[in-house]
């Protein structure tokens, strides 16, 4: 079948896997940079702190990073279509609370409680998506508004107090391990792997790049632009709910004031990992590496007893340096 079409142009010949090659060439560079940075951080930290390179610490980092990782996968999809969601932190808090209330106060079965939390997240995502695609509100404004509203609901229904006393066997979801690997990490890993592969090779998720690349052209190419943006928002709402429920399980309580910096932290991680606010570029793998790197830096600063008050300076500087370096290298080309 291959040989039936003789390829005259020699340039096309050695480009068998060119879709992947193209990804490697254009986006792989950033991913390589992230891997190098992560390794460098690990090596430097191993030298500086005796407590860093040890399984316990790594398991702790992995567990802590998993919830943000799940959100980052979805936020990555949104960034690719050219949008983003500031309400994920509020959604995590509210969805955790909804599940916690269903377990603690309503004594519903765990899976019903989880579904309740997920449905809440999906609803938040749906509203965000409708505001953006139907009412044509800019994602910044729409999700900023929703962020405030959802946070308000979380605080309102709990009167600002955490929902505590979630049973220990539910906590297994957040605290437990399977063959030594934290369960949230396994969930995050599976989601990220599937989404990453579908985004690289699947024709449904491939459409996201077209929407982010040129929305008008995508629409004229027959790509259901609005539906894709809407579904990306719903996916983000679901991911936030999952992250919120897992954290609730881990802490055995739903905390209405938690996660206030998650949205910006995750967006920063995604951008460091190669996503663009303009849309159309980046991979889930890269985005996750960005989030991992930021978690490592946080952990490293804790290890080195850097005051938490100063942590923001480092995180902000990393974001600006990473994106600035990228802009600089592009201009040179």
């Amino acid at each position: 079948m291959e040989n039936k079409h003789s390829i005259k142009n020699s340039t096309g010949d050695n480009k068998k896997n060119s879709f992947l090659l193209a990804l490697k060439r254009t986006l792989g560079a950033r991913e390589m940079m992230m891997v190098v940075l992560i390794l460098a951080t690990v090596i430097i930290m191993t030298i500086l702190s005796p407590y860093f390179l040890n399984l316990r610490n790594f398991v702790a980092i992995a567990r802590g990073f998993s919830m943000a990782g799940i959100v980052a996968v979805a936020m990555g999809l949104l960034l690719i279509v050219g949008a983003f969601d500031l309400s994920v932190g509020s959604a995590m808090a509210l969805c955790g609370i909804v599940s916690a209330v269903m377990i603690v106060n309503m004594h519903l079965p765990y899976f019903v409680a989880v579904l309740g939390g997920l449905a809440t997240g999906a609803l938040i995502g749906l509203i965000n998506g409708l505001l953006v695609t139907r009412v044509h509100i800019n994602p910044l404004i729409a999700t900023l508004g929703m962020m405030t509203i959802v946070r308000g609901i979380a605080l309102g229904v709990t009167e600002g107090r955490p929902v505590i006393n979630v049973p220990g066997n539910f906590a297994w979801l957040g605290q437990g391990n399977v063959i030594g690997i934290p369960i949230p990490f396994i969930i995050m890993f599976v989601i990220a792997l599937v989404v990453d592969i579908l985004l690289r090779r699947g024709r449904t998720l491939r459409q996201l790049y077209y929407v982010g690349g040129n929305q008008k052209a995508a629409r004229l190419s027959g790509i259901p632009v609005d539906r894709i943006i809407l579904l990306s928002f719903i996916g983000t709402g679901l991911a936030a709910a999952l992250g919120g429920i897992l954290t609730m399980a881990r802490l055995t309580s739903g905390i209405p004031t938690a996660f206030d910096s998650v949205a910006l932290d995750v967006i920063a991680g995604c951008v460091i990992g190669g996503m663009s606010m303009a849309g159309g570029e980046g991979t889930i793998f890269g985005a996750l590496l960005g989030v991992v790197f930021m978690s490592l830096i946080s952990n490293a600063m804790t290890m080195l007893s850097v005051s938490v008050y100063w942590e923001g300076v480092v995180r902000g500087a990393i974001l600006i340096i990473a994106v600035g370096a990228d802009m600089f290298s592009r201009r040179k080309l």
Partner: protein
Amino acid sequence: MVKPTPFFQASEISKKYPGTLALDRVNFDLYPGEVHALVGENGAGKSTLMSILAGVIKPDGGTLQMDGNPIQLHDPHDAQAKGISIVFQELALSPNMSVAENIFTNSQPVGMSGLINFNKMYDQAHQTMEAFGVDLNSRAPLRNYSLAVQQIVEITRATHRKARVLLLDEPTSAIGQRETEQLFQVIRSLSKSGVGVVYVSHKLNEVFAISDRITVLKDGKWMATVKTADTSVDEVVHFMVGRDLNALFPERDNVQGTPVLEVRNLSGRKFSNVSLTAYSGQILGLFGLTGAGRTELARAIFGIDPVLSGEILLEGRVIKVRHPGDAMRLGITYITEDRKIDGLFLEMSIKNNIAATNLEQVSQGEFINNRWLNRLTQELVERLQIKVRNLEQGLNHVSGGNQQKVLFSKWLARNPKVLIADEPTRGVDVGSKADIHRLLYELARQGAAVVMISSELPEIMGLSDRIVVMHQGHLVAQYLPNDVTEDQIVASAISVMTVNSNSH
């Protein structure tokens, strides 16, 4: 009027880019009051030369001279200070601000207080525009005016800074024929006042109408500089492509097709009660001025804009098209008029652009098969003779003519029953233009119904099997190309006098 010595000279200009020599020791000069046209195929180096003359990029070799003195241009601002202004194809205006503010960006007249004297600015703007024969309200936001007026505003802004050299890059690519004449008046009045104008355009008829001399570039090399009065279109084309395009249009062979696409009493936002039929094996030419409702009609058929009343039939059956995806599944394709705004994904590779409309074709179930995609892309690249380094090349590094071919190929790969091409050769060099014409012709010969929307009469006359004309949202005339003159078509496009002279 032309003085004996050029005042602005570029000698032996070279510019290297990785892999290509964009300009190879090119010479160019300009007399005061002269319109000097710069022509060549896409990729010939016109844009590079313009950018060097405007100080946007620096040459790797060669010198620029003004009044006999060598000059260095550090950036566009520096060039402006030395009297050289450029108006790019993409206008750099603020549509929400007033006409006057657009003209006086950074040079607003100030009063005693140091604040902007708005009344003075509005008056001055009005006077300047009036001098060009354009009467408008200089307080109104610029977006209220047509592209042609905006173009003139941009030129006005460039020249009121005492420009001696005005560089115009494809100034008419987005405006209609009548508006072009308005622009020409402005250019003529500028050249009368001594400004030297460099005019880059693909439209040779315009070049011959406005220019005093023509310089031809090909593959980064200087080919010829000729006096417009002493040359012919054929000679210039020959310099440009290095071959004769004698058979500019393929021969017509009166195919009697069957009706494929029928539109009955269709009304939409900017057109009403339009009925027409496109036959298999034929090209239907749809002529009209910009704003006549042609694009809107096409968008409604393709499901982008809503249909208010009337019906669309495909192969005799009434169809409902709610969005482009519906139209595509039925075999209808629409090639948009502006490849940059809504046609292509410029940041992406050629291959991924083609994949955009053909994901189904190159996928096994949910998964994209790279081998199939590569093969499809390779076939299209060869069929359309698209000049690219490789299939991964980003589209923004490809010339306009080749971009247009990529735009075509992403739709051709779907083997459409109906192909609506909106201004298929806008901003495309003569070589690519002939390729695209041949392509439309072949597509029709293979049985597709082609609808070609165009504002270029030669194209309409040369390629169409039947011609329909729209004016202010109405279909005002239908012709067979052999029974009609260019004048008659234009007459029906600008007034409603003519009614169906031919009932076919």
